[in-house]
């Protein structure tokens, strides 16, 4: 059974169709990257999956259970299993690093505070921020903030992590540290759905790459296919433009 199964997904903003029938199936432990031109609907797809925008048609299933986006409890259950990190401003500005990581497990999942704190400290250590526990987001670099955001997502113990251009707001020299953190997750066998413009990274870390344009997945395959021998003319055009040859 697929870990994340998306069938015939359609989403609209007002009357503009942004996702026009998305089918995507991701296995447990698989890493899938979404690439495509600006405005093709990559972020929208992640927003729909995570319940920020209700789909107009189609279904999303997590480990076989179809999410009912109109039902709070179904949505809550999906959010225990699925976490998302955005491009920027993920962190709560009024909380220090440790509280940012702890707030959801403690107040929403109602888990024991001591246990959560130990886990949060361990996670922050793991992403290299063990010495920033009491710093506030505005005292951290963009790369540090994103690593905290990833640690916060992980503290909910999700099975699936969605990452939406987590490095695109960063200075070039900060990109590497965040990508290293993501690679660590890959090594931990987490199911990942990644939107990224870092083609080198996408090629290195993904099992499969999906090329999106006009609200549809135009082509999907292993990185070697998408970057080396794309089948569709649109994929070819996009890849050659972005790889600069």
């Amino acid at each position: 059974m697929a870990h994340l199964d998306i069938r015939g997904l359609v989403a609209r903003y007002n009357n503009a169709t942004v996702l026009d029938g998305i089918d995507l199936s991701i296995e447990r432990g698989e890493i899938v990257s979404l690439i495509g031109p600006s405005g093709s609907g990559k972020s929208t797809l992640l927003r729909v999956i995570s319940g920020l925008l209700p789909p107009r048609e189609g279904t999303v299933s997590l480990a076989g259970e179809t999410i009912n986006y109109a039902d709070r409890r179904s949505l809550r259950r999906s959010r225990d299993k699925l976490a998302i990190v955005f491009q920027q401003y993920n962190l709560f500005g009024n909380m220090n690093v440790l509280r940012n990581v702890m707030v959801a497990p403690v107040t929403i999942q109602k888990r024991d505070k001591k246990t959560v704190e130990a886990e949060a400290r361990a996670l922050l250590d793991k992403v290299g921020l063990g010495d920033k526990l009491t710093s506030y987001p505005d005292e951290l670099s963009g790369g540090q903030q994103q690593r905290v955001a990833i640690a916060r997502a992980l503290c909910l113990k999700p099975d699936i992590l969605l990452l939406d251009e987590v490095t695109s707001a960063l200075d070039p020299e900060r990109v590497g540290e965040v990508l290293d953190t993501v690679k660590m997750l890959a090594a931990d066998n987490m199911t990942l759905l990644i939107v990224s413009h870092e083609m080198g990274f996408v090629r290195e870390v993904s099992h499969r790459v999906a090329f999106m344009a006009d609200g549809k997945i135009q082509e999907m395959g292993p990185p070697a296919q998408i970057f080396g021998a794309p089948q569709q003319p649109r994929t070819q055009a996009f890849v050659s433009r972005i790889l600069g040859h």
Partner: protein
Amino acid sequence: MHYVLHYGQIAPYLPYLIGGMAISLALSVLSFIGGMVLGLFFAVIRNEGHPILSRLVRIYVAFFTNTPQLVQIYVIYFGLPDFGILFSPFAAVLIGMTLNAAAYLTEILRAGLGTVHAQELDAAETLGMNRLQTLRHVTLPHLFRVAMPALTNQYILMTLGTSMASIFGVEELTGRAFNINSTTFRSIEIFTTVAVLYVVVTFIATILLALVGRWAFRARVPVL
């Protein structure tokens, strides 16, 4: 001019004036708290409530920010008894100031609400917070942080505004100053003393609010 200042003559009245100051403080603190509760409620309605409710709040704000506060309290104190609603002077002033404060605070808080990053709200939602949890853990702390200077300002204005309560016979600081004046006729001494007392009260309030803002909400307000 041969006016000789005699602060000694009003010294015995100092405890009496300080008692009046306590009443002024009670008025400003209570109406500020009441105004904050109402204002917060209205600000949320104004930003994300039903269009009709939002419109009603707008009318409320427009009404209270475009009429003199004195007139508003007059209506409450002298107008409502015609409909069988009677208030003591203190209650009438308190209600009037609260309703007035609510209107101004709605605008201040609404502006603050608009500065919460949409991504923070998205993050709260995808982490599983419901609306109330988001309000408590994300929106309100942010709001107090950014709005602290404006809130402090509003509170100071309200403290000074309490002096109009004397018109309705509330014996707060200014009211008591009038009382002493009518027996001692030491106007300059009395009203300069009262002015100093107002300065002291607002000064202390500014510092306290700045400290609260800094400690509780990491607001970047200078203490002095």
